[in-house]
């Protein structure tokens, strides 16, 4: 075909017409976008108008100076409403049907503390086609049911029949509200919010880290109580899982069934079929590491695939994190500099070299502690005195007064497990309470972790 023939052909006409249409449409859309674009300020004004019905003065929070990414959401912008002292937070929550949901959340402040939730307004969604089915009363739920210190649970909203069939979208909205509260508490008011202790664990996204826990048993097995996040439309599941030292499931029990359809009478037998499984066995049931429903190789838990997914996720988390759980099982680990601390085991006694983190204004302290088989302090010596005021000549005798003490004796000296200065019951180490705190923390750490140290056999 010659060039002349090509330009006269239908093919060329098709290309030319399509390109022309595309060009005209593109130009038209560009012009209209410039004319009809809704600016951020316009969106913000709409929100203010919807919430307050009038203009209010606001003060933008500089997000560059604070943490904006949280477990279940991201803060996009935040404003302090100077008229009433509340905060208006724009936040994107995860967990929706097809992605995130972005909401404006009014966080009420009273006496410099979060006192409730005002309005919650959806700003935008990503493919949440059912989100408009959520009744407006669902958004009132947050304001009506705020409990200080407790996160909202979408299961409560669902139980109140307020999700309108859009459970996953409602989950994302709930995550928005919880994230906004966490943001205001931690980044604006300076409160400490509970950190997820399992954030760095494998498959951490499967579980609610704040509601899950684990303990190391004397035989080297680990007992978990795992709260598994909702799988698609279900509520959260809860499992008690024991992983034995050979990294197999020793036992697994579903204590809370999150299935909204009712799993039936054979739930326990199906879940218990995981006993004896290794991580490889669990992984082999799925095509990838998401353990997502419908990614199973051959159907698991016939007729109850979501429950099956939850059970397999619980098993996978428990098995994959055996070593992590063991390494993080040390009680009072916050008291010590883990990297600088060491211990040895010999003849059923444990010898520690402990570096105790600074107590308030002091430097770090160092102690050599030996715990005998009867779980009492056999000897304790302060090798480095972190006191910035100088502890004086009687340091050794004061520290050595802890010899023979049990964990209960040590605990009895304080009102709580923080062993914090000024939480002592009757003054310890008169005139040197910070050094006393360090010594008691060293003793508490050494005594509380005796069994674990024996189990692991030493790291030095």
């Amino acid at each position: 075909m010659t060039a002349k023939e090509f330009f006269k052909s239908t093919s060329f006409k098709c290309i030319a017409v399509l390109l022309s249409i595309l060009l005209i449409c593109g130009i038209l859309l560009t012009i209209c976008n410039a004319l009809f674009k809704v600016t951020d300020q316009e969106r913000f004004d709409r929100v203010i108008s919807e919430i307050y019905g009038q203009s209010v003065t606001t003060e933008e929070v500089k997000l560059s100076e604070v943490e904006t990414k949280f477990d279940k959401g991201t803060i996009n912008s935040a404003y302090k409403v100077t008229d009433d002292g509340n905060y208006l937070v724009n936040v994107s929550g995860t967990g929706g049907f097809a992605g995130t949901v972005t909401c404006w959340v009014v966080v009420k402040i009273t006496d410099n503390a979060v006192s409730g939730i005002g309005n919650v307004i959806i700003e935008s969604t990503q493919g949440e086609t059912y989100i408009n089915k959520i009744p407006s009363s669902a958004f009132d739920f947050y304001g009506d049911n705020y409990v200080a210190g407790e996160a909202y649970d979408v299961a409560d909203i669902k139980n109140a029949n307020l999700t309108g069939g859009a459970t996953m979208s409602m989950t994302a909205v709930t995550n928005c509200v919880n994230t906004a509260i966490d943001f205001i508490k931690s980044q604006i008011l300076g409160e400490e919010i509970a950190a997820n202790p399992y954030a760095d664990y494998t498959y951490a996204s499967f579980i609610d880290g704040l509601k899950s826990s684990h303990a190391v048993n004397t035989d080297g097995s680990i007992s978990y109580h795992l709260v598994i996040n909702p799988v698609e439309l279900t509520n959260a599941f809860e499992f008690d899982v024991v992983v034995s030292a050979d990294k197999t499931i020793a036992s697994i029990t579903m204590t809370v069934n999150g299935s909204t359809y009712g799993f039936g009478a054979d739930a326990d037998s199906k879940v218990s079929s995981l006993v004896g499984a290794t991580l490889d066995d669990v992984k082999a049931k799925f095509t990838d590491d998401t353990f997502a429903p419908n990614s199973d190789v051959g159907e698991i838990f016939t007729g109850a695939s979501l429950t099956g997914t939850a059970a397999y996720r619980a098993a996978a988390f428990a098995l994959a994190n055996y070593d992590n759980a063991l390494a993080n099982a040390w009680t009072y680990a916050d008291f010590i500099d883990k990297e600088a601390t060491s211990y040895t085991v010999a003849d059923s006694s444990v010898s520690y070299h402990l570096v105790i983190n600074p107590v308030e204004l002091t430097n770090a302290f160092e102690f050599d502690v030996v715990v005998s088989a009867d779980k009492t302090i056999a000897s304790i010596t302060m090798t480095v005195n972190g006191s910035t005021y100088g502890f004086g000549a009687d340091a050794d005798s004061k520290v050595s007064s802890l010899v023979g003490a049990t964990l209960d004796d040590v605990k009895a000296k304080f009102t709580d497990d923080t062993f914090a200065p000024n939480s002592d019951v009757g003054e310890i180490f008169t005139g040197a309470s910070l050094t006393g705190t360090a010594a008691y923390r060293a003793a508490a750490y050494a005594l509380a972790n005796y069994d674990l140290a024996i189990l692991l056999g030493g790291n030095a």
Partner: protein
Amino acid sequence: MKNKYGKIALDGLIFNNPTFVLVLGTCPTLGLISSASSAFGMGLTVVVILTLSNMLISAFRKIIPNEVRIPAYIVIIATLVTLARMILEKLVPDLYDSLGGFLALIVVNCIILGRAEAFANKHNVLESAVDGLANGLGFTCALTIMGIVCEFLGKGSIFGLQIMNFKIAALATPAGAFIIFGLSIAVFTYVLNTFMRSRRIKSNKIARENLLDKDAGAMPVKEA
């Protein structure tokens, strides 16, 4: 000429109603009829887009080669839908929010592509505009009527105005919408068939009378 436009309009509105007779645009129908105002808003948006797309496609029907007509139609429809989204977001944000993802899905609404393919590319601009308007209004009426029924029974309200406390929550879900949709088709078909039958009987009767009159006129009169 006037009768032609009337026929096109009646076809779109009643005899070939896109929702009740052709069963097109089922996705937004099932998704939005749980709220009468959403259904009405979606209907009006479709009226505008369908009328404009029919007019544009009719105007360009002699330019667009047959081989690439479908992609060309889709580009035109997508442009109109995007424009509608921009305008609604700017001027009617509440309606924009209530339509949600279904607004973008108008691009693939088979009523629009169906009318473009079945009507607009064979008729002139005016006829296509009437067809688009009629089909759009037929769709709007169907959606709004079902929206009123669904919202009334499912939420106890009409256009957001609470009427009663009794409600059948299932009817406010897509599953409930499906049942209402099916029942609406049954009722519409019954009424339409009844009307058509009575019209046919009436026209047959008239034809028969005409025939008798004609026969009577042609009969020879016997002389006394």
